[in-house]
């Protein structure tokens, strides 16, 4: 297929469908709305179902039901809507139902929400933050695969710049290899055979065949998340080798930082850029490694300081870590806030290099 000019939302929708997504439920909220509209247009063409759900809570629970019945399912929203989904995302993590949550966030203010959740219990959510539309297309497909692999809800942290940017992209289905069969999925077929299925957060089992109960079940889940933390980190590190300054950023802020860092590097400044691709699990070891020669780490995020905690955890006191960003909401325009521009970042990096001069 030749590259097409696609709006990010539409590209993500096509990627989801290419990955086998056949059920989607969502509730409009800018900048997520376009993805919902695109799914509503495209899913029926492949005999899939797109539910124009009556609330985010209904949407995520519909996705949970579809996932439990074995379909590749998706839902999504942003900020406030994702807040309403917290209970169900945690539930799905604990009762092991896979689906993909498309968080087309209003900027970068929801890093904590995405990485620490606000659900209940010990759970984590695998979360990819693409830097642009092409990466979003790739991540979308990978996320459906990983959701099934780990039987867990997973998240794409997009934003307005992912959802609304048009880009020439080519959506090609990617094969990530085989997966275990979904023999746990509910289809009713085993009713009356003594082997009927059950999905229950507390894993209480059936008469005559008691389950592990929540204590053991949740310990097992916690181990699964530890495993994911070991295996699934992803990141991009640019010119960090030998850098005195490393600038960390995530998602669509990445290319802006990359541009600034590239310019400075061209000017002879020893500076690199690091971008976690998975927000959870956070690439702690890779960042520590990237900062080996650094004497300052700068964190650019368009919020009051959220990812900086993870950066500080990664460098564990070995290098001073300073914030470059701040709260910034371009409310009227739904870009990412006025600070998300090359000149702003360039200024701040210059200033920081001067200030933190060792």
């Amino acid at each position, binding site marked *: 297929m030749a590259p097409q000019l696609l709006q990010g939302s539409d590209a993500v929708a096509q990627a989801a469908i290419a990955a086998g997504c056949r059920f989607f439920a969502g509730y409009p909220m800018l900048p997520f709305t376009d993805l919902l509209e695109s799914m509503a247009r495209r899913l029926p063409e492949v005999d899939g179902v797109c539910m124009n759900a009556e609330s985010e809570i209904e949407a995520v629970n519909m996705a949970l039901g579809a996932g439990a019945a074995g379909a590749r399912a998706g839902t999504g929203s942003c900020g406030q809507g994702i807040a309403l989904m917290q209970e169900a995302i945690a539930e799905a993590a604990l009762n092991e139902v896979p689906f993909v949550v498309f968080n087309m966030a209003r900027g970068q203010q929801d890093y904590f929400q995405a990485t620490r959740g606000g659900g209940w219990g010990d759970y984590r959510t695998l979360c990819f933050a693409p830097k*642009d539309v092409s990466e979003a297309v790739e991540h979308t497909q990978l996320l459906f695969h990983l959701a099934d692999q780990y039987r867990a809800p997973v998240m794409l942290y997009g934003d307005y710049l992912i959802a609304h940017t048009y*880009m020439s992209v080519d959506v090609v289905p990617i094969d990530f290899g085989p997966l275990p069969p979904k023999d746990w999925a509910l289809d009713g077929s085993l009713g009356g055979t003594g082997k009927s299925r059950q999905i229950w957060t507390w894993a209480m089992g059936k008469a005559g065949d008691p389950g592990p109960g929540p204590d053991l079940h949740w310990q097992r889940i916690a181990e699964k998340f530890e495993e994911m933390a070991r295996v699934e980190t992803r990141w991009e590190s640019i010119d960090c080798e030998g850098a005195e300054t490393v600038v960390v950023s995530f998602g669509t802020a990445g290319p802006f930082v990359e541009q600034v860092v590239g310019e400075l590097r061209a000017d002879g400044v020893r500076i690199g850029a690091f971008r976690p691709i998975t927000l959870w699990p956070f690439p702690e070891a890779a960042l520590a490694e990237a900062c080996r020669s650094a004497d300052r780490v700068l964190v650019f995020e368009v919020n009051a300081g959220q990812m900086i905690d993870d950066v500080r955890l990664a460098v564990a006191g070995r290098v001073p870590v300073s914030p470059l960003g701040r709260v910034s909401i371009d409310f*009227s325009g739904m870009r990412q806030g006025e600070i998300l521009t090359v000149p702003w970042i360039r200024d701040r990096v210059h200033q920081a290099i001067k200030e933190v001069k060792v």
Partner: protein
Amino acid sequence: MLLTGIGGQGVQLAAKTLAMAATAEGHQVLMSSHYGGEMRGGQTEASVVIADEGLRSVPILESVWSAYVMHARYWPAVADRLRPGGVVVANSTVVDELPTGDFRLFPVPAGQLAVEVGAVMSSGFVLLGAYGAITGLVGVEALVSAMRELVPPYRTQHLVVNEAALRAGAGAVTALDAPAPFGAPARSARASVGTAG
């Protein structure tokens, strides 16, 4: 290229048409737009980056080579980013309100031409046709077919007038001697379609 305008003036549709036309002509395109969240009628703006090779640019542009201006209200946002000597294709009705500066201004009587071809709501397309012709970035045929693909099914009644508008705009101007610098050495040639209108 940066396009700006006031919500409802068709700026977004114009930008999409341009981007799609450029894609159809074989270029790599990145187009970003922004407009109000839960408020109507605010600023609307779109940027289109057109390049020949692998394109991975930031979607919020620092500087632009050309701009498309439908309304004067948001002009400062355009002026800030226009490179010295940049090209500005603007609706004539707003030209008076624009301060002078280091740019080449091409006024197009978009509203008047639109009325003439019976497409009073399509002045954005007039300006776009003119923009394409002036900059040489895209041909009017590519614009027309992109527009045909973009107009949603429930708006097909607008196809004819939009086409007329594009052609009227293209026909009303003469091309620049130095066309748009895409394919230039820079990692990505940045053309910025800007409407503040």
